[in-house]
């Protein structure tokens, strides 16, 4: 149980996908103009990520190592088509807002990254926990980023006006460059707080985003 919790909770802060792993930046930059878009995108990713982790983990012993990437992509693509059709049926306005970025979940680095680094080496239950955790971390980050940009750029949050009268919205934040600047500042703040925590524990500060080998399987643990 504690292992399950550990795999679930690492996606929420320690390996938070967009800010700690710096993965999946394409949707992070493109669809976070409002909190609602960010949240919708996050939900789609939770769905795809959890199910693809489960499926990859189930078939991990059958797939030959040489064609594993192609298999992961096929699994992710089937799930994304399902999400796309579901969204068209039940959340059409959101689908129109997100546009091309829904099909692009197929090539989202987080999906492939978790399949390769975690699900293909671990039993199904752990893989589900990992997928859920990472997906929720991703949703949280996107909603937060989207909310920040929506409040500053439009003076609204989830479509409700939240600022005082006479507030002049900072339209720069709602435009494309605002996404890059906000992401950069948030990354800097995350590192700042990480270092503050390490300092309190008496450890040396670190440069740049940190993660352990659990988030990357490239060297196979060597």
């Amino acid at each position, binding site marked *: 149980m504690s292992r399950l919790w550990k795999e679930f909770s690492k996606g929420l802060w320690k390996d938070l996908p967009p800010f700690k792993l710096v993965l999946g930046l394409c949707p992070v930059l493109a669809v976070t103009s409002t909190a609602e878009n960010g949240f919708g995108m996050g939900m789609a990713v939770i769905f795809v990520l959890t199910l693809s982790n489960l499926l990859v983990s189930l078939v991990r012993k059958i797939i030959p190592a040489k064609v594993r990437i192609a298999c992961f992509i096929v699994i992710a693509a089937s799930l994304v088509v399902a999400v796309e059709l579901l969204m068209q049926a039940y959340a059409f306005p959101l689908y129109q807002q997100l546009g091309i970025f829904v099909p692009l979940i197929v090539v989202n680095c987080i999906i492939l990254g978790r399949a390769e680094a975690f699900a293909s080496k671990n039993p199904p239950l752990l893989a589900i926990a990992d997928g859920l955790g990472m997906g929720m971390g991703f949703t949280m980050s996107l909603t937060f980023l989207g909310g920040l940009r929506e409040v500053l750029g439009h003076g609204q949050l989830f479509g409700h006006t939240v600022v005082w009268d006479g507030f*002049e919205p900072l*339209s*720069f*934040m709602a435009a494309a460059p605002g996404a890059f*600047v906000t992401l950069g500042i948030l990354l*800097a703040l995350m590192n700042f707080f990480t270092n503050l925590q390490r300092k309190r524990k008496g450890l040396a500060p670190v440069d740049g985003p940190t993660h352990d080998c659990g988030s990357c399987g490239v060297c196979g643990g060597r």
Partner: protein
Amino acid sequence: MKPLIPTLTVSPPPFAHCGKTVKKRMRAILLAMLPAAALAVYHFGMDALRVMTLATATAVIAEFISDIVMGRTSQVDDMHAFTVGLGFAFLLPASAPWWLVVFGSTTSIVLGKMMFGGLGGSPLCAPLVGWAVCSLSWASHMDIDAAMLTSELNYPLSQLKHFGAQSIAGFSLNDLLVGRQLGGLGAIQTGALFIGGIFLTMRKHIKVAIPVGMLAGVLITAGIFHAADPQKYAPAMFHLLTGSIIFGAFFLATDSSSSPMRKIPALLYGLLAGVLVIIIRVYGVYPDGVPYAILLANLTSPLLDRIKPKPFGRN
């Protein structure tokens, strides 16, 4: 073995050892900006003074606070923040509201300078970063045409953009030279800025190649357009004396950390900025292309810095 991909290196100047200090250089730059600031107050009244003092004060305070937050030894007494704030104020219309000035000036310092590691680390000219953020956000408050309501002066570049080359016949070059036009409050005092720029060049505080390249780029490109169709395109001298070209060439493009170091790269960098200004003015949506032209040229400066002599002894 030679690496397949060339490594792009941004090395932070200045390295010169000649008894000059950053403080003395900044003091000279401020001195060179003084006549333009005085003319701005003469033309736009206390409003101009309000914008300039607010912008400089905010810039200095913002730098001091970010020094404390980032745990650095404060170097705010080198007066660089003062020049950045004044440079930002020079690009604003005199009617800018106070919160815009405060926000833009803080952005210039924090986003344009301190985020990259303070003086010498910034890849972009700091005042232009604040200007770009503000003009993308509050186009209506940064709109120079809006200032026409309270002033009898005109904005020549907007006239040129919207009514064609026929409409600018009313502007005499002498009027433009003494700043009888609308625009960024200090940036349009072209005559005063030109004198200040010459002073800086004589004292070798800025690289001669950059303003020379930029002014040449403007004159040549605008000259070609004008020669091709004098009915449609404004003459080169008109372009040179309107908007913030002179200010950009002598004060913004020469920012030491965001411009190339050697002579030939600096000349190319200036030429690029100059050509871009006219291209943006002729084809772009912005009446005055100087800030974006210089920001784009800033981005090429690490590339241009790769043009360097062969090390002695290597064949």
